[in-house]
């Protein structure tokens, strides 16, 4: 029991230490409005997934921050059910990347391969779903 509590506290502290620099990165990005600019870059590509350009914003918010702001941004758009499914699948594959990648790195995996797998899963599934749905 005591060992469990001890390793629980240790692990909580390890995970927290891991995310502090990531939160610095994210908060600074927000302060310089980088997310709006980033979604501006993605806008023209959303058409490949059958999505309107404005859907770049929830995609960027979900990937850089987490799913909750992305959900808000999706609801602010008027997407049809096919489009909601597509962006849902894309975001489920790839979201909260800075935080989750920091944790997987701490767990011992390299960042780039995991990032590549997740982004590819998101992009390819979005592309295919747009064709088949």
């Amino acid at each position: 029991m005591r060992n469990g509590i001890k390793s629980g506290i240790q692990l909580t502290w390890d995970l927290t230490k891991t995310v502090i620099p990531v939160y610095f990165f994210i908060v600074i990005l927000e302060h310089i409005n980088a997310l709006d600019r980033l979604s501006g870059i993605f806008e023209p590509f959303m058409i490949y997934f059958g999505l309107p350009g404005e859907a770049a914003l929830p995609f960027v918010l979900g990937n850089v921050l987490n799913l909750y702001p992305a959900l808000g941004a999706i609801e602010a758009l008027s997407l049809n059910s096919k489009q909601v499914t597509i962006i849902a699948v894309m975001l489920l594959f790839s979201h909260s990347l800075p935080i989750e990648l920091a944790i997987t790195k701490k767990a011992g995996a390299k960042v780039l391969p995991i990032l590549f797998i997740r982004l590819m899963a998101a992009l390819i599934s979005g592309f295919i779903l747009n064709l088949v749905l």
Partner: protein
Amino acid sequence: MDILNIIYDVFNETLSFLIQIAIIVIPLMIVLQFIKELRLYDKLSFILYPLLRIFKMSKYSSLPLLTGLFFGIAYGGGLIIQSAREGLITKRDLYLTIIFLSIFHSIFEDNILFIAIGADPYIVFLGRFILAFAVTLFFAKLWKTEVKRKRRPEPESDNYWVVD
């Protein structure tokens, strides 16, 4: 002023992360301690046994996998860190667990969020599982287990088997 704002935001975010993690991780580690002391690993791993067998992973991957599936990748990742620290998990298991969980985790919370706003539940849930399965299987086949790696492929020789 801006710097203070940034530090304040980071502090806030970190604190809420810490609380959120502690609430789940500390009880989880207590449960894990019991599982270890009562030697329940084998009993628990049977839940994921078919998956583990296909991927040729050890039973020690089952707890990080289950945790990640139910609670999310932060917690699953935490358990991987813990298992790696105790030397229970091989590099191969570690990567396959992380690959699988990266694609398919937090199956209740994440999926319900999107189903609530109108996404197709079957595509969201099954699609994600199938892709996670396929990608992990691909890497599991690519990354042979240690025993198989010793077998040198020698064309035209049919009695070249390693007995294990």
